């Protein structure tokens, strides 16, 4: 997939921007706080109508405006030339694909893969399990409407069961009624997460080797809160746990408490890996995500690199560029001009939400 034209209106600090892309590599250059990342955020919104920075879409609408819009013109492996329009309001959003309204997110997922490389990715290694779960759910759901459906069923059943527990004095039969939907959805979620992480881990391992130049093994290990992907086993466990759950007024067991860890040489990366190793790990994770998207959708993802390259030493940076898909479109941001050795870049200068294409210099 190649992004050929991107138009933003009232998106964060960008009042209006229309960028026409030619070639494979685009670079957005400018000082901090000018709107570079906002543009990448808008581009990344295409995949699953989610921002990589915030869960609240109302933050995306420009100050004092009632709605924002992002429009995409794309060259697509399966659809040919495609046009996608996303309208964002403070209370909701609308999606149009080739002038037809798309009302179910499930029908949109899996078509337009993008992967964001962000400097905040380090939080995936060091941060809370909730952040890792959010990343995993987004990655797996973005290409698989089946995963999204299971996740939604699970979350809804969990919220209903927790509402019962919160009120106190919950009747066993009502708890059982919601457990009947909760358990099969949870079991499927566990199985799908295990399979997804296994595939992601395999690509991460080879990408990490290439970026770091190290031979030691890296990987992802799934840490399910309830390890057995069996509906009956979980049903039995939930039933046994009712009294304790009632005491804590919430469901204590299940995939809503899952986690996964990054490992280098078999030890937990968040405790033992160096800064540089952790940086290589998250880059390898994003490369694994891109490979997963491509395998699932048959569409080559657009890579959105948000100021991550500046933090790498030249050697690692060179190896990173050697690792990514040589055919994939890359839209990168940074404060200093891009590496000329990486081939021709189309450069846009960013200042105060305005984007100006810089003519190719002599």
């Amino acid at each position, binding site marked *: 997939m190649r992004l050929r034209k991107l138009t933003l209106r009232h998106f964060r600090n960008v009042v209006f921007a229309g960028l026409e892309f030619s070639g494979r590599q685009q670079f957005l250059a400018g000082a901090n706080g000018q709107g570079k990342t906002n543009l990448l955020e808008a581009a990344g919104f295409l995949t699953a109508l989610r921002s990589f920075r915030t869960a609240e879409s109302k933050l995306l609408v420009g100050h004092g405006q009632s709605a924002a819009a992002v429009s995409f013109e794309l060259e697509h492996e399966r659809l040919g030339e495609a046009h996608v329009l996303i309208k964002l309001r403070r209370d909701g959003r609308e999606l149009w694909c080739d002038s037809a309204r798309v009302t*179910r997110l*499930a*029908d949109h997922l899996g078509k337009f893969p993008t992967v964001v490389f962000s400097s905040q990715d380090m939080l995936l290694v060091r941060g809370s399990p909730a952040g890792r779960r959010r990343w995993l759910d987004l990655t797996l759901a973005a290409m698989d*409407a*089946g995963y999204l*459906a299971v996740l939604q*069923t699970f979350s*809804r*059943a969990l*919220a*209903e*069961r927790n*509402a*019962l527990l919160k*009120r106190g004095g*919950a*009747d066993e*039969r*009502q708890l*059982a*009624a*919601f457990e*009947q*939907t909760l358990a099969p959805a949870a079991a499927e979620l566990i199985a799908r997460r295990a399979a997804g992480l296994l595939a992601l881990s395999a690509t991460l391992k080879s990408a990490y080797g290439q970026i770091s130049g190290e031979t030691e093994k890296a990987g992802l290990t799934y840490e399910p809160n309830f390890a057995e992907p069996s509906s009956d086993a979980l049903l039995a466990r939930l039933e046994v746990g009712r009294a304790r759950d009632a005491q804590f007024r919430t469901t204590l067991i299940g995939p809503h408490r899952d986690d996964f860890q990054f490992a280098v040489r078999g030890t937990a990366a968040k405790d033992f890996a160096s800064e540089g190793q952790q940086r290589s790990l998250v880059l390898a994770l994003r490369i694994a995500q891109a490979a997963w998207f491509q395998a699932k959708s048959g569409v080559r993802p657009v890579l959105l690199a948000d100021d991550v390259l500046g933090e790498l030493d030249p050697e690692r940076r060179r190896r990173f560029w050697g690792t990514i898909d040589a055919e994939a479109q890359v839209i990168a941001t940074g404060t200093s001009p891009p590496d000329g050795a990486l081939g021709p870049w189309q450069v846009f200068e960013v200042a105060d939400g305005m984007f100006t294409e810089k003519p190719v210099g002599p």
Partner: protein
Amino acid sequence: MTPAFDKLQKHLKQLPGLGYRSSERIALHLLVEKPARLPALVEALEEAARSVRRCARCGSLAEGELCGICADERRDHAVVCVVEQVPDLVAIERSTAYRGMYHVLHGKLSPMHGVGPDDLNLASLFERMAASGVEEIILALSNDVEGEATCHYLTERLAAMGHTVKISRIGFGLPSGGGVLYADSVTLKSALDGRRAYS
């Protein structure tokens, strides 16, 4: 505008589906544009409020003790189709595919929205079962978490009471006359899960 007008508009706005603009439009229509229609509307409201109530057996709308369907001796009284709301019953009736009885729960279990078993029209269903004569229950509740939980709850309660009635769940899948191509992915999954032997 005027105190009485504002009061009317405020009451209209509380009705489901009406916002500020539409309630204002209705109030203007009734008071200014077509005031001649007002007495008939007031009378209809009063009459309906006086005579329409829930059917003592199934919970649907009735003007006597029983609704038209429960009072109809030609219908099959051995089969009861359980639905969430009166409009669900109306939709099934419109299909003319069903000649049995109904039972309207007036909701589904949802602790998040504060709806428990006591808020549903369950007691009269259990009374109907105890009075016997019912051989099959068709659960025509919605295909979501709350609908499924309500089906499960109902089934468990009936089993605990020792009823051995046949219980079925309506199928979920492709709309008639609709191609596979145009079905959304969740419906397709449901249709595949619910496939049956073809002979």
